């Protein structure tokens, strides 16, 4: 029996780790931005348009049925750090701004207007009259209280995402204990309805950041109850819905909040979430009518079935590019990958399109740069202004030549190395395909090694690998979220890469308020990164989903974060 149990574990692992993988892709740490993600993918109707179809007849029963592939670990906005919590919290809370579903611009949320100082450092927010679900008024104090909760170094519960608030003047110092007086932090309550925020640096994407969950307000009653977010009846929220049902590991339900200031815009009465971590089950339920929507970012459609459902259900299938990149990274501190020519040879020898067409099957875009499409810079999409095709191309002869040169420089006569990936069928398939391409094109010896998630991440952080898979999603809508990770000694730079020119460019971009200058620096930095070929970009992610034709109003932002608050059902 023990063994049959372990067999069960196997499947569980497939699924659980699959979720981790999904998490890597759609881990939207910030939702903000000035524009919807532009996408080159063929069928982009993920953001089902919110009703200009002329005559729409609403269904009498506005109960939505949606699946989550993982349970949100918390309902405390200041503790959340994953995409599922993001989806649920977006229903329960509203920040100073919210994201316009169509344009992706930050628009009025709890704040009905704001003034920005000429130097771009001081924001003054004017709050509208709005209420908590218990009838209390939402005030500027609630925001100050919530943000202090995040930053307080002595808080009973440390907030892992506190650094999302470091844009505010003094926030980092307060959070790390360098200053102890909260009044020195740039958060100032002028009166009940006015909040003044002072930033450390001009941050063009700050308004967008305010719609992110770490910035949500919480009701002051949570102060005295450490466990307020673990029960249904102790949660007082200010968003379109309230949590009304929760069975651990089984299901959740949110119900429309009549106290919400824009309750008239909310057509859904209730959203029932099941928690099932199996793509196959989710798809069957969807086809059987037990679910109204299936697929990313909060659910899953089995990869192998993507091309099939795309053909079978063309009106329900939607694909949208999201700002995440899948890549292989080198440990550049150890031979032979200290040699950029060898690294570049490997990058050039991968044929990306066949991998996408046959293995990943989700219509992903071949990647030749590190910043994915959908990321904005200087009022436009970064990738549209700085084409990634300039960095390198797939070229087998050139690759072979570079490899020979590189090997000669290193005094080697053949190349042998190990590719490490974390346990998941998806990663495994990609690794098998790439290893095979390398073997065939360059005659190198490639060993594959998969590791359990925790072991894998630990090994990668400790530079205990040669070539490893990785993925990166946007924390906010700016190229900085991709490029500042490769600075010398950066917390997420687990390749050992260090380049003084690169560091300098990033520092210059950080301190500049001029969007054109920043753009220039980003492009130059990315070029260095690609010339040094620290990472081999493989593809830019897409989100694939199925939505019943009678379900309208579901939107995805540039990073693939889902907003269900304006969803509703048509008669069917």
């Amino acid at each position: 029996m023990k063994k049959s149990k372990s067999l069960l574990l196997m499947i569980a692992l497939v699924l659980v780790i699959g979720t981790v993988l999904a998490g890597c892709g759609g881990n939207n740490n910030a939702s903000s931005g000035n524009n919807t993600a532009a996408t080159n993918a063929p069928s982009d109707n993920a953001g089902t348009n919110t009703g200009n179809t002329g005559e729409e007849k609403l269904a009498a029963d506005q109960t939505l049925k949606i699946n989550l592939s993982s349970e949100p670990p918390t309902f405390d906005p200041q503790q959340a750090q994953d995409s599922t919590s993001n989806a649920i919290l977006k229903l329960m809370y509203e920040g100073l701004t919210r994201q316009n579903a169509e344009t992706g611009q930050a628009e009025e949320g709890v704040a009905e207007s704001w003034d920005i100082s000429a130097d771009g450092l001081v924001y003054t927010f004017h709050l509208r009259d709005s209420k908590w679900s218990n009838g209390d008024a939402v005030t500027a104090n609630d925001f100050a209280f919530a943000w202090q909760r995040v930053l307080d170094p002595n808080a009973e519960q440390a907030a892992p995402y506190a650094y999302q608030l470091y844009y505010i003047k003094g926030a980092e110092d307060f959070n790390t204990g360098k200053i102890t007086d909260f009044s020195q932090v740039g958060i100032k309550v002028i009166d009940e309805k006015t909040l003044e925020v002072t930033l450390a640096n001009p941050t063009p994407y700050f308004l967008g950041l305010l719609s992110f969950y770490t910035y949500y307000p919480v009701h002051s009653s949570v102060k005295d109850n450490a466990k307020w977010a673990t029960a249904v009846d102790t949660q007082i929220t200010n968003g379109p819905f309230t949590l009304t049902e929760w069975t651990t590991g089984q299901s959740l339900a949110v119900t429309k909040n009549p106290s919400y200031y824009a309750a008239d815009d909310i057509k859904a009465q209730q959203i029932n979430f099941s928690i099932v971590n199996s793509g196959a089950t989710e798809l069957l339920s969807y086809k059987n009518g037990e679910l109204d929507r299936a697929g990313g970012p909060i659910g899953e459609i089995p990869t192998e079935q993507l091309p099939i459902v795309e053909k079978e259900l063309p009106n329900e299938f939607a694909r949208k590019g999201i700002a995440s990149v899948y890549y292989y990274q080198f440990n550049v501190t150890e031979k032979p990958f200290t040699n950029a020519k060898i690294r570049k040879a490997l990058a050039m020898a991968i044929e990306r399109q066949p991998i996408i067409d046959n293995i990943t099957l989700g219509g992903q875009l071949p990647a030749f740069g590190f910043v994915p499409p959908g990321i904005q810079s200087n009022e436009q999409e970064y990738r549209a202004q700085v084409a990634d095709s300039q960095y390198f191309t797939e070229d087998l002869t050139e690759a072979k030549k570079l490899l020979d040169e590189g090997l000669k420089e290193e005094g080697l006569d053949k190349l042998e190395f190990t590719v490490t990936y974390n346990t998941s069928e998806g990663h495994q398939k990609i690794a098998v395909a790439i290893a095979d391409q390398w073997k065939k094109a360059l005659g190198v010896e490639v060993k594959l090694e998969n590791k359990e998630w925790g072991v894998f991440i630990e090994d990668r952080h400790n530079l205990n690998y040669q070539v490893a898979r990785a993925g990166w999603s946007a924390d906010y809508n700016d190229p900085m979220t991709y490029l500042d990770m490769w600075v010398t000694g950066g917390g997420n730079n687990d390749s050992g890469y260090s380049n003084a020119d690169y560091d300098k460019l990033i520092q210059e971009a950080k301190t500049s308020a001029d969007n054109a200058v920043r753009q220039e620096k980003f492009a130059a930095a990315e070029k260095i990164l690609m010339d040094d070929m620290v990472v081999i970009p493989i593809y830019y992610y897409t989100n694939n989903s199925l939505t019943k034709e009678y379900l309208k109003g579901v939107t995805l932002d540039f990073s693939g974060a889902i907003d269900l608050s304006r969803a509703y059902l048509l008669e069917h």
Partner: protein
Amino acid sequence: MAVNDNMVKQVELKPEDFRKIDINDKEAEVIQRESLSAWQDAWERLRQNKMAMTALIIMLVIIIMAIVAPHLVPYTYDSNDLMSTNKPPSLEHLFGTDDFGRDVFVRTWMGARISLIVGLAAACIDLIFGVIYGGIMGFFGGRVDTIMNKFSEILYSIPYLLVVIMLLVVFEPSLWTIILALTITGWINMSWIVRGEIMQLKSREFILASRSMGADWKRLLFKHLLPNAMGPIIVTVTLSVPSAIFSEAFLSFLGLGVQAPVASLGSMINDSLTGWLYYPWRMIFPALVISLTMLSFNIFGDGLRDALDPKLKK
């Protein structure tokens, strides 16, 4: 006992009723039945069991195929062909191709090779370890039983997934590591079954008889108790082969076993699961080989059980 005195009286025996037959004492002791060792005897009976012999032949065919088949076709288990992925069975690819365009025929038999090695090795180790451990537990009882029993319970209760992840950290992935991971707790179930059987058997009369004739514990255990517990033991062994084969898929997946692109039957089935509706051949052929293997193992095991069981002797 009520003995009928009348009956006794009515039959009167006289000396002339008896006749001395012409036979010497030595001949009287000759055993008429052909002398066979226990194993010869078992083999004789096994041979007469048609089901078991069919199963044996199927087993042999599968084993031979696992050795020979990969050399019969012009593909190797890892030759990708992204131009012909997920092709149904044809003359070119007998069992079709998988999502990498690899030949499922080659992969199935290569997988069978690995699965058989792992399954059989694990089952053997489970058998040896489990029988000895369980035998000692059940036979001695008392404190020995308590301590050994507790030990096995604790080992069984430690989260297996943690143990496997630890093994993964300590050892390089290889066939031996898989077998180690499979057997590290795999023998426990067998030992419990054996313990239960022995506890039941040791109070039987034949044990008392043997004991009174001065048999030591080794003789009692290995000559008397274990052979009589053979039925459940064989059933458990034949059951542990398939579970070992499937657990191996789990271990490979975790990164402990064979690494992609090498495959085992279990991992092939596992990989094919999400698309089985559309590419059934990727699941059916490996599943068929596993099921046939299991079926033949089990039927043969049953036959063996019948043949070995001293009580079923005619």
